């Protein structure tokens, strides 16, 4: 690669990074949609970092972890595997409030036998990097990066990943309310319940439109974005059947890949 090429790549990446943070900042306006913010963060993590998939887990008021956003179904499944087997890097990251890097999952059987076995059976990822969503020395969740190849994550990428995790924390807790402890649990519970409303709406749309849950989610998300409505609010109306579902599923609404 010529120096000119590498210079251009470098500035492309910088432009992408600044665009990501501007978009995220734009998302943090009044009445913004936390789940949509977290979904965008997961998408940006995949675009900006050497990760093939990304997901975000949050602890509820009992400190049980729950998966709330993912760049794709594979990342979601990886997180569920950990939550179900009650072990894995994202749980350790959540408990220690420190990054957990697993450069090669093939060597993780000693530490997390059930999880490692389930991962190797699926065979789509070889390394995981879990970054904490931190607040006052405690983790409220984790951003998980999954890669198809083994190897460590470069220091600069780790720092950028952690910055994305901080944005997620601010987004969940709302900056102005962050100093009131009670608000933390409140916001988390709200975000987690919003996720459940969205899952119910995915089911309604999937059945109505003969789609898979992932395609139903894409339609829902695309409609919310292009009509500037909150994802959770739209989902609530879909579940209440207080919305013309054909509008969301119309061919003109075919989901486009995120920018």
């Amino acid at each position, binding site marked *: 690669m010529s120096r000119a090429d590498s210079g251009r790549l470098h500035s492309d990446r910088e432009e992408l990074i600044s665009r990501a943070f501007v978009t995220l900042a734009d998302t943090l306006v009044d009445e913004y949609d936390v789940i949509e913010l977290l979904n965008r963060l997961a998408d940006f993590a995949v675009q900006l970092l050497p990760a093939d998939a990304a997901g975000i887990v949050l602890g509820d*008021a009992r400190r049980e972890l729950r998966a709330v956003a993912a760049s794709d179904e594979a990342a979601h499944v990886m997180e569920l595997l950990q939550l179900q087997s009650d072990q894995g890097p994202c749980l350790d990251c959540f408990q220690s409030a420190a990054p957990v890097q697993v450069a090669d999952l093939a060597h993780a059987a000693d530490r997390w036998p059930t999880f490692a076995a389930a991962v190797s059976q699926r065979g789509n990822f070889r390394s995981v990097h879990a970054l904490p969503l931190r607040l006052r020395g405690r983790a409220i969740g984790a951003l998980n990066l999954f890669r198809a190849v083994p190897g460590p994550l470069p220091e600069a990428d780790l720092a950028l990943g952690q910055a994305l995790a901080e944005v997620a924390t601010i987004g969940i807790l709302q900056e102005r309310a962050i100093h009131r402890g009670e608000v933390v649990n409140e916001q988390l519970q709200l975000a987690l*319940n919003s996720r*459940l409303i969205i*899952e119910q709406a995915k089911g309604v*749309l999937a059945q109505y439109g003969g789609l898979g849950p992932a395609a139903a989610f894409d339609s829902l998300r695309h409609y919310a974005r292009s009509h500037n409505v909150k994802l959770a609010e739209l989902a609530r109306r879909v579940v209440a059947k207080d919305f013309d579902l054909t509008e969301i599923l119309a061919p003109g609404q075919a989901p486009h890949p995120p920018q």
Partner: protein
Amino acid sequence: MAEFGVVTRALLAIARDGVDDRGLAMRICRACVDGLGVDGAAISLLTASVGRQTLAATDETADLLEDLQFTLNEGPCMQAARTGHPVSVADLQHSSEVAHWPMFAAAVIERSPVRAVFALPLQWGAVNLGVVDLYRREPGALNDEQWRDAITTADTAALLMLGLRTEPDEGQGDWLDPTVAHRAEIHQAAGMVSVQLDISTAEALARMRAHAFVHNRLLIQVAHDIVARRLVFTQDME
């Protein structure tokens, strides 16, 4: 690893000895009064189908708070039900929150000794099961631990109430395990069945639980089959 507060533990210990909706609501209210340092509690339903009704109130003051909200058509309970967000007002005489329901706040101060109110929505995704209202005679917020306990209590109470309403026959099965009740597939499946049978998601859950019970399967297995379209509910099913 889960951190359960005192009230949540008390709720989980509630034996399922044939208690009905109102009986269960009263036990939840009493557990809140015993464990959260509040003077009274009430649970009301605010759904469109059932209409507004108070299921349980631990005393006359708690009952009055519900009545005032229904009469004035405003208050923390309605705010919580509408937004899905808990409401905490540590001092009714000094809070910006009361701007959302000025008539209710004025009436409470005039007609009752209540000085602090807290309202927690009972919900399972989009399913609204009612609201827990708590009050104190002295101004003062719930401390962090009490508030966390109150939020997990509302979560557990919602599962208990929904469990009762969607009871297949006897026993809760795996229902009351929050890690089961919050699984994405169960919510997706409830959404799908609600379209298959043209019913609400709460009713869809009841049908899924009944199916699991009759066929001696776990709810999560039934949900998997629905999402994978191996199982489709029809009107003339058992």
